[in-house]
């Protein structure tokens, strides 16, 4: 077995938490159940990984199997990576039957024709997700297995989720291979990024609970605004205001859990508006400013701002449009015309 493969397998096993090594190796299926029984999972990870490498040696593992193990790890720990969303466009309306073998063949052929030294691995999951792992090399060097790119493609949708490696120069090639393999003609990066792959899927597949506008002339009386507050000795003076905020929040955010995003970034290229007498910034240039909101769960915290009394309801549409517009990176420019208000760059 190749030294580099052995080392790669060893390092992959070391990344796994000790109690999960066994299940991951079972999912991998490369080592037999009998072989797994011989492993002692109660020793330190260093020793466990050495034993695993030895067993792999017995089975003559090659880089293909090692890459498959890596996909398994990254599928379970997908939230450790940062994912970007790409949308593909078809030229016509032809509904073509998706053939997975054809897809894989075309993808590999396209990539390999441009770059000989790549390791390409596929794995399909039950939710129609196709995971692709690509390790990149150069015409002169073997692929770097430690910095692969991951692609998740749901064949019935035009969306691709990419966790690129640090080597961004390979991205155009990857995108090209994707559109060729999936019979689309164009691909563009959406301004949507997050660690939570499932949340990104929720947003673009519109799987989160959206609120559909229904006309309610008056707030429903006796609504359970705060079900936890069962103590009748506490009187809420601002009940009607609380109910208004709650209703507005429901309208904007819906009543279900929000997709998990970690930040929203607004790049402002607007004019600085100040008292003309102060004469700040003589040059009428846009005032460049970057505003970034970060949170372990941005949308849930935005949803709790008004009920917590930290912001007025309704919130700015720039914040609330994030899931509907499927973006968390915005460029705000001046609107040219009669009304000097800012508008969001599409």
């Amino acid at each position: 077995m190749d030294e580099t493969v052995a080392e790669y397998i060893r390092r992959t096993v070391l990344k796994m938490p000790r109690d999960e090594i066994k299940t991951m190796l079972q999912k991998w299926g490369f080592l037999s159940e009998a072989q797994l029984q011989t492993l002692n999972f109660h020793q330190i990870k260093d020793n466990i990984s050495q034993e695993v490498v030895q067993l792999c040696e017995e089975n003559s593992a090659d880089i293909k199997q090692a890459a498959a193990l890596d996909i398994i790890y990254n599928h379970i720990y997908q939230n450790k990576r940062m994912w970007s969303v790409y949308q593909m466009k078809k030229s016509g309306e032809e509904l073509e039957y998706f053939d997975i073998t054809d897809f894989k063949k075309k993808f590999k052929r396209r990539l390999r024709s441009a770059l000989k030294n790549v390791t390409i691995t596929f794995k399909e999951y039950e939710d129609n997700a196709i995971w692709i792992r690509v390790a990149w090399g150069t015409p002169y060097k073997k692929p770097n297995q430690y910095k692969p790119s991951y692609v998740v493609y749901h064949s019935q949708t035009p969306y691709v989720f990419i966790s690129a490696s640090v080597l961004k120069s390979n991205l155009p090639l990857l995108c090209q291979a994707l559109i060729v393999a999936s019979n689309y003609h164009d691909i563009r990066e959406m301004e949507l990024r997050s660690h939570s792959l499932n949340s990104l899927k929720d947003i673009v597949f519109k799987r989160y609970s959206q609120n559909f506008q229904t006309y309610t002339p008056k707030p429903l009386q006796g609504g359970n605004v705060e079900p936890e507050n069962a103590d009748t000795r506490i009187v809420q003076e601002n009940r009607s205001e609380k109910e208004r905020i709650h209703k507005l929040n429901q309208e904007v955010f819906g009543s279900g859990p929000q997709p998990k995003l970690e930040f929203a970034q607004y790049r402002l290229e607007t004019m600085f508006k100040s008292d003309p007498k102060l004469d700040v910034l003589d040059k009428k240039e846009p005032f460049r400013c970057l505003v970034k909101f970060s949170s372990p769960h941005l949308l849930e915290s935005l949803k709790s701002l008004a009920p917590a009394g930290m912001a007025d309801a309704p919130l700015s549409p720039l914040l609330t449009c994030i899931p509907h517009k499927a973006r968390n990176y915005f460029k705000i420019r001046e609107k040219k015309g009669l009304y000097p208000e800012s508008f969001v760059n599409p």
Partner: protein
Amino acid sequence: HLATSLPLPSERDHLRPRIDLVVFMIDIKSKYSLKNVETSLAYVDASFFLGKVCFLVTGVGRVNACSIEMNAICKLGETYCSPVLFCELELEGIRVATAQRLVRMLGICAGHIPGVSALSFVSLMRMSDDD
């Protein structure tokens, strides 16, 4: 009675008992909360400031999340001649102790403790200033 700001909604005037103590809660992590308290103070009748108002500053346990300066809070207490209490709501022990203090103060303000009235708070504060 809990309110997010003053003035209190007038539609509930008839449902409200006599007010003996007003506690203004300031979250030390939120400048907005201090601003809200400052604007609400304008709606309090002057007679309340004879011992029937107190400031409760919460969130003091999280030292690195403070957004409000101590100076601003102390100045607020001095300007309005009212005591300032500090507490951390996330710790049950402190929460309970603070609640007990407030209930004790409320008892005095409501006139339940013979020999002590709300004015005592004012004179107590004056004395510490002279030190």
